[in-house]
């Protein structure tokens, strides 16, 4: 299916026959996908297609009913959920998921500190490590929030909270970014910021992007997967997927003329 992709790209993350059943409901059915390093892989589909479920399994939040997830060739579906992040798989959430009571810098510091060690250091003050602050600030600046550094996270605008969300993922220095609708609920200008940001990031990380904004996905994706009702419909380059009659049918069946 991915024959048009040149084979010199590294497979970062791979799913093999991934299934998730909720009782009798097949939320995901036999999904086999490959995500390449330094590529942006878009996932689209109507509501209830299983996009978020897939992302939740890729980050270890749900355990698959069947099938396996390979990270650099090693099966990781059985490891603990926090261990996914330690392997460099970071994710952002569909609903803003930050520490609202802390400053933006502190939000990122929590993310950075995990790999800096000293987490069970009971005596040393959290404010003494300059390196930690620097990396956190760097992550904030990357998403364009440098000027909001010392603001309390609940006081910044919604769009900025979404940016902060991405900054926190970047602060963990991941290899894989799983982004769950980073532009959800954003105005046009704010989404434009995120699109610019993702354009910068997509050559540095392996990014899996679930998004409803079709224009953005078409603009950004190297690879595009369409999912319908928990099933994998097609995967390929944006142009190929756009012209696929099955995709049109799936979306037209919803009465939703996106293409």
């Amino acid at each position, binding site marked *: 299916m991915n024959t048009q992709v040149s084979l010199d790209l590294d497979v970062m993350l791979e799913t093999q026959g991934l299934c998730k059943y909720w009782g009798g409901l097949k939320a995901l059915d036999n999904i086999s996908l490959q995500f390449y390093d330094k590529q942006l892989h878009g996932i689209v589909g109507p509501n209830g297609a299983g996009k978020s479920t897939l992302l939740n399994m890729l*980050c270890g*939040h749900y355990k698959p009913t069947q099938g396996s997830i390979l990270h650099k060739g090693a099966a990781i579906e059985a490891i*603990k*959920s*926090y*261990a*996914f*992040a*330690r392997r460099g798989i*970071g*994710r952002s*959430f569909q609903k803003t*998921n*930050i*520490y*609202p*009571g*802390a400053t933006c810098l*502190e939000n990122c*510091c*929590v*993310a950075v*500190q*995990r*790999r800096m060690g*000293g*987490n*069970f*250091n*009971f*005596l*040393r*003050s*959290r*404010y003494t*490590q300059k390196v930690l602050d620097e990396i956190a600030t760097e992550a904030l600046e990357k998403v364009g929030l440098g000027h909001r550094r010392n603001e309390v996270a609940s006081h910044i605008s919604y769009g900025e909270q979404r940016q902060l969300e991405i900054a*926190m993922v970047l602060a*963990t220095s991941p290899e894989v970014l799983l982004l769950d609708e980073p532009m959800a609920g954003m105005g046009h200008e704010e989404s434009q910021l995120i699109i610019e940001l993702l354009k910068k990031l997509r050559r540095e990380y392996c990014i899996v992007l679930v998004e409803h904004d079709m224009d953005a996905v078409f603009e950004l994706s190297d690879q595009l997967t369409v999912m319908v009702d928990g099933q994998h419909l097609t995967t390929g380059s944006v142009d190929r997927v756009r012209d696929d009659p099955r995709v049109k049918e799936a979306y037209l069946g919803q009465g939703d003329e996106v293409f």
Partner: protein
Amino acid sequence: MLFNKRTERYFIWVFFPLALLMPLFLAENTFFVSKLTSVMIFALFVMSLDYLVGRCGLITLGHAMFYGLGGYLFWMIAPEYEAVNFWVYTFYICTIAAAVALVIGFLVLRTSGIYMIMITLAFAQMAFYFFSDSIEFGGNDGLFIYVKPETSIFGLSFFDLDNPIHFYYLCLLSLFNTLVFFRVLIRSRFGRVVDAINENPGRTTALGYNIFMYRLMSYVIASALGAYAGYLFTLQYGFVNPSMMAWTTSGSALVMSILGGMGSIYGAILGTFAYEGLHYLLEHLTEYWMLFMGILIIAMVMIFKNGIAGYMEKLLEKRI
């Protein structure tokens, strides 16, 4: 941040000098000194609970188990008619209590919220009935401690535990050290992760933290300090009995923590003094003190949304 450090600093500068000077004026009034001592001991216990409930978000109704355990452990491991070293036995008791907390925490912390309240209560009740039903541990009447420890370090002894004023200062020192310890702990890198877990556990897991380990560590620390408070209580009154472990002890400690301002740590001292002060006053005014106590506590909790500590901070912020 809800509880700012300025108010805490003011509080420390007012409370501790006052407490330090108190015996100068009231040294003859032994009842008052011993009352203050027992309130400070309980404040230490409430502080350890406040850290668990307010800072870690772990609501427990079984914390009194460790309070009682501190006392029983001393009886168990110390020889009956021989003065032991206070500091050495502090270390023993805290270590054993920490080991017990490690095992219990391992089971208890798999749950959260209301389930955790129930399971901690179940453990505490188990311990309560174990000690109140066993003849070896004195049953309902508890046990007497005949000899108080001596407190020498390298041959130097600063406190004579049979002297109430000395014991008062020992408890004041313990309270101060515990407060400082919690301040350092909260400010530490460990404290950062604990704050993060309290605010958003899901996100903290997604960032790669094994939140169970942090909760377990907090539980162990708080439990060891709770046992230390129980040990001091036992030394003050010279006895240990199962009612120290009763769930009502946990319950009133929880009320004091809420009254003082959950998560503020120094609020534990405020809450305990307010509660015990009210208790003392009403007890002497009327036979139905519990009724008025209940009404007053409800009123205070409703007026001070973030406890007395929170109210103080609001006042100070307005002034400055």
